């Protein structure tokens, strides 16, 4: 680890990608992630990489498809409306089992929405997004340092499982500056004998494809994908707990909201209320079992999100009806304050809040 430097979240992702060996970046600008594409425009030529501002998000994701097929460590980034445009390509990449990293610094929606921070793309990120039975690995960091760590991890996981990995951040994480340290390097990319880099003496060419025109073939492929997803679910759940040991009310939040909620937990603890925070770091696979385990000791749960209620469904699936699950959210680009969340916590613990 080198000396700490002060950096914006968006730029830190770019540098982390370079550290991770990413030498191909394709994107199209959109607020609030434009500092990332700007950073890559400057940085990629310095490391003999390819930076290309595509004519659209659709073009960018298909360039990612091509570069990934040729075995490159490749990344694209955007914000909510731009990520919607990329969904067809992401589905193809998932179907063709190619590794790539997609960054969504999300903003308020639906539609063009606002340019302020949002977490209303959770369903899109974790439940598919494009068509077909597939899953992206979805990382949800909560600080500039964790953006860096998750970016490096994203490239490693993408290669390990030949699967798209999404970093789901938000406008606030992208815009904020915090001290950050970069690792010297990431794990080397594994050999990619499947990549389309020429026959090199082989008889059979490698084919990158997401079309299986015979139904039995496609079903077999889907079975294979599901087996892979099962392995990912077993191996890659990540989360963090804060003051949950004796918590009667467990708040569940990720990303920037987890920071707000952590402050609210401290406010509640200061007046003797037993409150804790469970923070998923992987939104897919969601740490169902680990959160569910807390239902043995906690009396209730509350999801806090910058959405109208999306991750709360995964919280309910974790608790499977054993304890009440509350929800509090802000939308449109508005961010809740610690005091606001603390107010809701007090209401719930005094038994005044509706489920």
């Amino acid at each position, binding site marked *: 680890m080198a000396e700490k430097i002060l950096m914006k979240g968006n730029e830190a992702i770019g540098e982390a990608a370079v550290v991770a060996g990413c030498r191909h970046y394709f994107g199209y600008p959109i*607020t609030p992630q434009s500092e990332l594409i700007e950073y890559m425009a400057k940085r990629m030529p310095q490391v003999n990489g390819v930076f290309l501002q595509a004519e659209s998000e659709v073009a960018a994701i298909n360039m990612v498809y091509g570069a990934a097929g040729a075995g490159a460590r490749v990344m694209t980034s955007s914000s909510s409306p731009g990520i919607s445009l990329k969904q067809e390509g992401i589905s193809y990449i998932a179907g063709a089992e190619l590794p790539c990293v997609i960054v969504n610094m999300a903003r308020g929606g639906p539609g063009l929405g606002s340019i302020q921070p949002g977490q209303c793309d959770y369903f899109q990120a974790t439940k598919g997004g494009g068509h077909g039975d597939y899953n992206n690995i979805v990382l949800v960091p909560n600080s500039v340092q964790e953006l860096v760590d998750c970016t490096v991890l994203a490239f490693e996981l993408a290669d390990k499982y030949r699967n798209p990995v999404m970093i789901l951040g938000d406008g606030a994480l992208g815009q904020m500056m*915090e001290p950050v340290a970069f690792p010297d390097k990431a794990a080397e990319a594994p050999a990619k004998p499947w990549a389309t880099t020429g026959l090199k003496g082989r008889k059979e060419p490698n084919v990158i494809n997401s079309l299986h025109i015979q139904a039995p073939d496609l079903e077999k492929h889907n079975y294979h994908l599901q087996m892979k997803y099962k392995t990912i679910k077993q191996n890659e759940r990540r989360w963090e707990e804060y003051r949950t040991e004796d918590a009667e009310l467990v708040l569940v939040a990720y990303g920037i909201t987890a920071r707000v909620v952590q402050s609210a937990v401290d406010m509640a603890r200061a007046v003797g209320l037993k409150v804790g925070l469970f923070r998923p770091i992987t939104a897919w696979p969601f740490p169902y079992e680990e959160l569910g385990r807390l239902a043995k000791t906690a009396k209730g749960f509350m999801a806090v999100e910058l959405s109208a209620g999306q991750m709360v469904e995964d919280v309910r699936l974790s608790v499977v009806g054993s304890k009440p699950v509350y929800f509090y959210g802000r939308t449109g680009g508005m961010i809740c304050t610690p005091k606001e969340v603390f107010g809701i916590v007090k209401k719930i613990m005094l038994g005044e809040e509706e489920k």
Partner: protein
Amino acid sequence: MTHEIVMAGFGGQGVMLMGQLMTYAGMLENKHVSWIPSYGPEMRGGTANCSVIISDEPVGAPIVSEPTTVVAMNLPSLDKFEAALQAGGNLIINSSLIERSSKRSDVNVLLVPSNDIANELGNAKVANMVVLGTIIAATKAVSQESVLKAFAKMFAKKPELLAINEQAIKRGAALVNGK
């Protein structure tokens, strides 16, 4: 100790830079720090503000809603953030551009004629550095030395700027510390 500072003004007054320098200085002192700007469609010619947190503890929510110090570089900023300031906090008002003082009696009001002082120094652009000097003297969140180190790092390619900015910071600090 946690300093939660809101710095606000109109675009071009250098509030973002003030915040970044303080944040950088805090980092150099191994404190926990965060900086986050307001951003939106109103940026150009409108008001801009940033939240700075400098703390001995890890930083939770980076967006400051109840500041311990408010810096108002223009009247709309004073109108917007005066009420949010915690009792006993510092209210730093750019009195070169803001004609009224504070309506509150429970806060520490500091009037800084920053543009006038900057003009006296012969460089209108350093008004924000005058205010920065006042902020660090009033809050003691970071040392003047660390801010100057941060400045030298951030402007490593323009070392000739350091002297005038150092002068401005010292003038701003003198308003608190006496001359």
